[in-house]
């Protein structure tokens, strides 16, 4: 039974299709595991074992009747609590929206429900996907399963914690300025921000419509590809190599050309020494696997971050101005202080920032001429202690996630080893727009060569 907890999605789905594993048995194992450990990790805002068992029984019925073509039939998933599930609250981690019940499924939820996946619950998020980790909200702060009292990253914190700790094989998050990739990096899992527009965001509480994307967190690259295919818009998925991300992961990376953007984490600002070594080693590994890796330069990472700030904050303030100005005290301090900033950006500066975004995107794509993908850092540091008072500011500043939020390119964060104290390290691979296939292809080759994702977090094991 214990093998079910950390079983890859693909393995579980295959066993279920062959009728060697019952979806009900699988879900019951995850429910027991979650009940044993989530009281300490706080990945879920709303854990829904009854809904999960209902969905699992329905999946079992479909499998007994012949199954169908879905690759996620009977597969459990969680939804970041900014994504609507009809009849459940979508709180966005905010007391302001605590009683806001979704009237209908989000588009992404509809796709998962139609595919026969099993809804396990709503996952913890930073308030409005921007303010956290916060101890002044009605929910506890999620804990990184790799080290007690350490930051899980955010804002899709609960999604990453649940996947890392074996409570779920996949979880759905959102990524505006890195909210899938940051917790993926901190928790040692795989997290993709797909190309802007690949996933329909209807029914997802917005933060900044210019950047908002829905993304996937998983322990394995292949599982991530299966889940992304399930929720992608079919018309855009057709642009994938062979119409499938999964087909591309088999191809290896011989002959691919990868640009290493080293100045971001080794010159613009120095990342943690073990993080620098991990990415440099990964670059050598890509070369050993047959790719051509060459160093390139892009504008300073601070330019991309400033551009994101000048667009995200005014858009978010405009969206939530009614609540922010009338009931400011009901927001947590971190969300409130971030969102208030939007009131100070002029319309002229906002529009200039959009023109800057266009320039930065063009510069980035020009630098990618002749290249298939880019390799760089995700976060500059491993997870901080939650007792570290300066950690929130550093977690926001010391990263290169904003680069691909600005350009709208697909970008994946992958485990790239561990520090000497056992905390996950990470790297980031970005591809051309709508070329998730190549991103997965490179990520999968690295994952197979490194096998970092088979190590299990000590807290998840100790609490069982």
């Amino acid at each position, binding site marked *: 039974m214990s093998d079910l907890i950390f079983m890859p999605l693909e393995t579980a789905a295959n066993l279920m299709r062959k009728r060697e594993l019952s979806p009900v048995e699988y879900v019951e194992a995850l429910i027991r595991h979650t009940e044993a450990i989530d009281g300490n990790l706080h990945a879920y805002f709303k854990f829904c074992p009854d809904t999960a068992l209902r969905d699992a029984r329905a999946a079992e019925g479909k499998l007994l009747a012949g199954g169908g073509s879905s690759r996620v039939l009977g597969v459990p998933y969680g939804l970041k609590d900014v994504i609507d599930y009809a009849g459940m609250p979508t709180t966005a981690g905010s007391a302001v929206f605590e009683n806001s019940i979704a009237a209908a499924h989000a588009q992404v939820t509809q796709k998962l429900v139609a595919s026969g996946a099993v809804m396990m619950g709503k996952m913890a998020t930073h308030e409005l996907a921007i303010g956290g980790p916060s101890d002044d909200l009605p929910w506890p702060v999620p804990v990184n399963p790799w080290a007690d009292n350490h930051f899980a990253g955010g804002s899709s914190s609960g999604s990453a914690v649940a996947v890392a700790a074996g409570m779920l094989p996949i979880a759905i998050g959102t990524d505006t300025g890195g909210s899938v990739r940051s917790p993926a990096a901190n928790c040692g899992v795989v997290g993709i921000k797909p*190309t*802007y*527009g690949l996933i*329909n*965001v209807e029914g997802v509480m*917005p933060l900044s*419509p*210019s950047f*908002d994307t829905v993304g996937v967190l998983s322990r394995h690259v292949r599982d991530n590809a299966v889940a992304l295919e399930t929720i992608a*818009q079919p*018309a*855009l998925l057709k642009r994938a190599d062979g119409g499938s991300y999964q087909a591309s992961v088999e191809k290896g990376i011989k002959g691919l050309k990868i640009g290493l953007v080293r100045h971001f984490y080794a010159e613009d600002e120095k990342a943690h020494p073990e993080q620098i070594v991990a990415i440099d080693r990964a670059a050598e590994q890509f070369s050993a696997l047959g790719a051509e890796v060459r160093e390139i330069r892009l504008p300073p990472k*601070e*330019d991309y*971050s*400033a*551009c994101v*700030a*000048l667009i995200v*904050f005014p858009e978010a*303030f405009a969206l939530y*101005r*009614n609540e*922010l*100005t*009338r009931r*400011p005290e009901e927001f947590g301090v971190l969300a*409130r*202080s*971030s969102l*208030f*900033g939007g*009131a*100070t*950006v002029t319309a002229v*500066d906002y*529009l*200039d*920032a*959009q*023109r*800057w*975004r*266009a*320039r930065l*995107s*063009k510069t980035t794509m020009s630098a990618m001429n002749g290249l298939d993908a880019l390799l760089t850092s995700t976060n500059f540091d491993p997870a901080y202690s939650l007792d570290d008072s300066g950690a929130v500011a550093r977690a926001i500043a010391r990263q290169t996630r904003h680069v691909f939020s600005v*350009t*709208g390119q697909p970008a994946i964060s992958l485990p790239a080893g561990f520090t000497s104290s056992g905390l996950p390290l990470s790297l980031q691979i970005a591809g051309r*727009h709508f070329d998730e296939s190549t991103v997965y292809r490179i990520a999968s080759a690295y994952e197979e060569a490194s096998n970092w994702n088979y190590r299990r977090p000590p807290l998840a094991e100790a609490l069982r």
Partner: protein
Amino acid sequence: MVDDPLTEHFLRKLSEDAGFVAPNKMILSTIGTRYIALRNACRRMPKDFHWGEELVSALPYEFHYGNAP
């Protein structure tokens, strides 16, 4: 920061224009801190934008929010 009358007057005007009714010291102080941070972000922006440059993102229009197929 809000102890200086001129600064307080400016931040109060900024806050009221943004929609806050009778903003208290906490609101003024937060707005003031964020104002400085975002002016610093503005200082990184190029100053040579041409009238013909795109006013929205470089991404194809069909993929803008709400327009995706």
